[in-house]
């Protein structure tokens, strides 16, 4: 009789603790990985400009994109839902979106590098809530980055040279 009376509290506090520890571990691992790969991919440049640098003309183009979905945890969701009552910075979700955006750009750059591109222009980022705003559903956020990868046209082969 005794502990069963508090089953709802036990479940709630356990989920909160699991969310906190697991979510925090996942987040710090993800940030470490993001920082490391940002350095590795620093040679692939991404810009929001619509106009490619003149030096790159003529060029080959390719659409590159990267998408990342990051799930929230119970702790973040609890803190955020209390926050909705009074308003203010939703700090617990800000890091989630930051991770999603940076991960999406990294995946886009990765695709560009795989195809031999070192420059991506006209980069745009979109984000969406993939749970469709269901009440009570765990929020997960998707960030989608896309852009136009550019590289100079390869010099003509010697035997076909005019």
């Amino acid at each position: 009789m005794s502990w069963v009376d508090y089953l709802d509290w036990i479940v709630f506090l356990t989920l909160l603790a699991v969310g906190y520890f697991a979510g925090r571990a996942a987040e710090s691992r993800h940030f470490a990985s993001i920082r490391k790969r940002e350095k590795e991919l620093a040679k692939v440049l991404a810009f929001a400009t619509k106009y490619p640098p003149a030096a790159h003309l003529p060029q080959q183009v390719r659409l590159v994109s990267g998408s990342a979905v990051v799930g929230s945890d119970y702790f973040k969701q609890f803190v955020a839902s209390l926050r909705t009552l009074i308003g203010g910075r939703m700090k617990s979700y800000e890091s989630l979106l930051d991770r999603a955006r940076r991960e999406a750009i990294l995946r886009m750059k990765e695709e560009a590098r795989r195809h031999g591109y070192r420059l991506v222009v006209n980069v745009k980022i979109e984000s969406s809530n993939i749970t469709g705003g269901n009440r009570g559903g765990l929020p997960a956020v998707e960030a989608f980055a896309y852009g136009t990868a550019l590289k100079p046209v390869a010099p003509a082969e010697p035997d076909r040279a005019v």
Partner: protein
Amino acid sequence: MRFENRAPEETVNYADEHPLKEFALLVVGVLGAVALGAALLGFFAGELAGRVPFATEREYAASLTERFEQAKLTPAQRDARDALRALAAKLAAAMPLPPDIAVSVHYADEPTVNAMATLGGNLVFYRGLLHKLESEEAVAMVLAHEIAHVRLRHPAAAMGRGVAVGLVLSAVSVGAGRSLGGDAVQRAAVLPLLKYSRDQERDADELALGALVRVYGHAGGATDAFTVLSQAAKGEAGRVAILQTHPLTGERIGLLQAAARQNGWPVDGMRTPLPPALRSAAAGK
């Protein structure tokens, strides 16, 4: 010209502060404010409801009273009910119950080890509890406790609080949706109501004890009754006091004994055997 993608500056897009800090601030701030608001609202609603004339409450609860009255009883059960009514009349006179307040005692042939007081001065005594009580004093303590609830207008106050806090909460949850925060708000709002409920129990215990001593000359029945109730609610050792509707039994017995000593009442004394009508009903005959 040389271009580069510099590493983004950390802590611009997200806060570099410990997540437990925001958690603590929100829990204390938001849930504390909710609990305080519910406490205030509950207090005023309870006070207001307790001031509604008893006649109005009785009218409001007329259908409830009728339902209790029309419950089918065997002749033995009717005898038990009448014995309980006679005892209640004695205790009500000793309390004393003001002339405008009346109680209607009902007997329920159910195994529940409990008794209750509800709107309109209706008291229900369950066979399960009667079966476990061994003296008239113990039965009298339970009855006196429930009569005290009516005398102190507790059912009305509790309903007033429940309705007021419930209305505001439902408006809040329409706004906030069914979310984790909404659940936490509900829990926070219930805490002060539980506190009021425990206070009611303590007040009823105290008033009941006075009536018991005036009728029997000692407080012995009180301890008997609570010992039986605590055995029925076994496993109380692991309970969290602030989440209960009733104070823990150990505390109740301690408070009663302290009150008896303070008033110079004998804590113990001779027990009166149960009247035959109650004994046979309790035995299920």
